[in-house]
């Protein structure tokens, strides 16, 4: 078995990786993992005051620090039933624009663009694209300046507090931000043209669900009291758990989420897909010019969506400054008296939906729950990883897998500090089906399902193994029996399904493979064989929890016997399962 590993993905924020395990002609697994260790942030705010919490939690991530601050402050204000003046919200929104532009411009120009232009980094790109590199740096610098003026510092500013701001920026500082934003417009429009016309590869492409905050008043924006899912579902902020039912996987310190069993995506592409119709002025015009069907199913278009959002921000900044300066007052921090309460704050971080939820008791944090965008995207990154790797493998482009996985992960703009770096390709030749079978067996009780024709030589492998497994007392049945059995009931359980069949995996006769059903379903050579046997009711979780135990056949002649090689393979399997 070959393993493609990208151990430390370069040009992403934080330390993570991706591995693809390739067994013959199928992708055995793709894992997106986080190399960083646990920080237990949700635990160390317990017993702290709301003020301490909103100072500590933004430290989760440097690049999303403003979003964390806003999500924490909004959650606390909801818990404390505190309403701030609309002017305070306008200044918060202006600060948030700073973070969006800073993060997006860093990502598209410095981290992602070298991929499409064929450079190892942005600095190497500078000789040929000096203008773009320099102006993009100035744009990033300007965005940092906005955050410094409003939040007190580029990173981990403390000026935003529950109830308002420690100090308001002066009128001159705000007017300077407005005039500087207008100066950038020609370059911003060029940026949108550049990133919307890049040659994005069409692998991987597949439909997915998109989730984002639903901004009020039919506007585009980066916060809301509800979550909008692309299937039309609306979830009120306190019901966020319906979307983010977190679970732990052994290869990552970022907890995962699925919506109704399905992986989903959050981020700029999710917002543009869900809310792009709401864009006005130049951003609206550019959306109508460039948005097409590919944006709905290809995660690489996230780079284009980010460019579009930069434009939205640059158009919104002058409006915000004007609205803030309509009145001369600088609101004081709104005090609060409440000591109990529960509250949720929803905010769009640059890389997607960010949720903070707190319960307060006796003036101190009793419960804290923080759900970051990259942790939500992890499942979909793996799913698209399987699709990309399997499609390339089928096209005979195995050597392209590594780079594509790298670009895929980077397109998601993962912020690993938030969730907890990226990819390198390593190949190993070990087919460790025994170990994996034992692992599966020790975790949960598997249900074996046999596929095959008992009269066609080695195709009888499935039915023959099922008969001996029944003798051993395992839950086992033939695919032909599947429909009559109490299937819906079984499928609701946490059972692992193992399909047993003679599988042509390009190996020596009698060799055994154990591969996830999900990869098989995305393989153009193997899927047609299995799809008729896969019950329609299976959810993504069950699909992900199911495997194919395949035996390489020697011959499949009608009315012939099992070959000695396959017979021996079946013996090996039963020996393992006996113990």
């Amino acid at each position, binding site marked *: 078995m070959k393993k493609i590993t990208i151990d430390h993905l370069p040009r992403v924020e934080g330390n993570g990786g991706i591995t693809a395990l390739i067994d013959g002609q199928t992708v055995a697994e793709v894992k997106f993992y986080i190399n960083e260790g646990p920080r237990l942030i949700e635990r160390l705010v317990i017993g702290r005051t709301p003020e301490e919490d909103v100072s500590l939690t933004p430290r989760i991530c440097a690049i999303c620090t403003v979003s964390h601050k806003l999500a924490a402050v909004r959650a606390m204000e909801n818990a404390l039933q505190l309403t701030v003046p609309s002017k305070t919200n306008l200044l918060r929104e202006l600060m948030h624009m700073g973070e969006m532009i800073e993060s997006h411009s860093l990502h598209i120009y410095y981290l992602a663009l070298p991929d499409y232009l064929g450079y190892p980094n942005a600095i190497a790109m500078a000789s040929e694209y000096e203008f773009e590199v320099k102006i993009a740096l100035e744009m990033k610098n300007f965005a940092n300046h906005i955050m410094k003026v409003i939040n007190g510092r580029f990173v981990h500013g*403390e000026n935003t507090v529950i109830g308002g701001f420690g100090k308001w920026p002066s009128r001159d500082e705000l007017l300077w931000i407005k005039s500087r934003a207008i100066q950038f417009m020609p370059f911003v429009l060029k940026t949108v043209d550049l990133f919307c016309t890049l040659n994005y590869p069409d692998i991987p492409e597949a439909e997915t669900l998109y989730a984002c905050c639903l901004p009020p008043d039919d506007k585009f924006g980066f916060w809301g009291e509800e979550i909008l899912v692309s299937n039309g579902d609306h979830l009120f902020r306190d019901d966020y758990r319906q979307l983010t039912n977190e679970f732990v996987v052994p290869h990552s310190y970022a907890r995962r989420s699925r919506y109704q069993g399905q992986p989903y995506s959050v981020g700029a592409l999710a917002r543009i897909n869900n809310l792009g119709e709401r864009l006005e002025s130049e951003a609206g015009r550019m959306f109508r010019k460039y948005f097409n069907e590919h944006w709905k199913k290809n995660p690489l278009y996230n780079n284009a969506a980010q460019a579009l959002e930069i434009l939205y921000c640059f158009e919104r900044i002058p409006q915000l400054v004007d609205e803030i300066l309509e009145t001369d007052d600088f609101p004081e921090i709104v005090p609060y008296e409440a000591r109990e309460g529960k509250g949720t704050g929803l905010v769009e971080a640059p890389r997607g939906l960010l949720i903070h939820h707190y319960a307060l008791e006796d003036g101190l944090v009793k419960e804290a729950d923080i759900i970051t965008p990259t942790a939500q995207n992890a499942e979909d990154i793996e799913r698209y990883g399987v699709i990309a790797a399997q499609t390339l493998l089928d096209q005979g482009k195995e050597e392209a897998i590594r780079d594509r996985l790298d670009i895929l992960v980077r397109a998601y703009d993962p912020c690993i500090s938030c969730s907890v770096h990226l990819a390198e390709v390593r190949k190993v030749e070990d087919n460790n089906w025994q170990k994996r079978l034992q692992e599966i067996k020790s975790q949960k009780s598997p249900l074996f399902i046999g596929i095959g024709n008992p009269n066609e030589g080695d195709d009888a492998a499935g039915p023959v193994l099922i008969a001996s497994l029944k003798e051993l007392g395992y839950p086992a049945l033939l695919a032909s029996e599947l429909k009559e059995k109490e299937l819906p009931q079984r499928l609701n359980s946490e059972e692992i399904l193992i399909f047993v069949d003679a599988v042509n995996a390009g190996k020596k006769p009698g060799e055994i493979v154990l591969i996830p059903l999900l990869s098989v379903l995305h393989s153009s050579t193997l899927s047609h064989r299995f799809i008729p046997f896969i019950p329609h009711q299976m959810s993504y979780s069950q699909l992900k929890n199911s495997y194919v135990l395949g035996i390489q056949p020697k011959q499949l002649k009608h009315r012939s016997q099992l070959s000695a090689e396959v017979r021996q393979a079946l013996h090996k399997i039963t020996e393992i399962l006996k113990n």
Partner: protein
Amino acid sequence: MDNRKLKIGIYELTGCAGDALMILNCEKELLDIFQAVDIQSFLMAKSDNIEGELDVALVEGSVTTEKEIEELKDIRQRSRIVVALGLCATVGGIQARFQNPQEWQEHFRKVYGDTSMELKATVSKPIDAYVKVDFYLPGCPISKEQFLHFFTRIVKGTPPEEYPRPVCVTCKYKENDCLLKRGLLCLGPLTSDGCGAVCPSHNLPCVGCWGPVKGGNWTSEFYLLKEKGFDVEAIRKRMANYSGAKISEFFKQLDRRD
């Protein structure tokens, strides 16, 4: 000194990546930085990284997994100078609160349950818990100005200056109102300077995010705050937030006096 460019590596262990980001935030100086030295490894910024002998390794983040301990030891072994960059590397970060392994284990279980993780986690520690550190640059995150002063000295082969002053010094230069006098729980006297006294300059008390200043009088501040009527537990908690693994010695001082 010959004219050979210094070989530099910038590494991130567990943290928010804020210190590496602050280097990228030196927008106007960034192209000069990349020209003045030979950046061999900087994962956040480039993909053609080389892991070999280094003149200077800048390490940010705290050590929280067994793999990171190995990586850190490897970095130390091939680097002439090792610099702890930022609060996580210097004191272990906010995540170094739970230093007692049993207490840490309990909290760990509450977040991750009993899943057996592939990457073995450990109690969060500053990098000097495992390797010799030549210079410390504190901050959460480091400040651009402080980094550029430090970096220029290193490039010129002069030892960088230390920051043995508390935040109060800058507050005095800026003629800010003393927030302790106004009755706010300000940690300025105990905290390393370098941020420009940013919170007090915004009418907000210092939270302590540059970490403990050398020679800070913790006992005196503690009793001062107690006299002002703050709850003893609340003071201890506030002092612990950004002091990481280095808080215990101060609390020992306090407990001896009590």
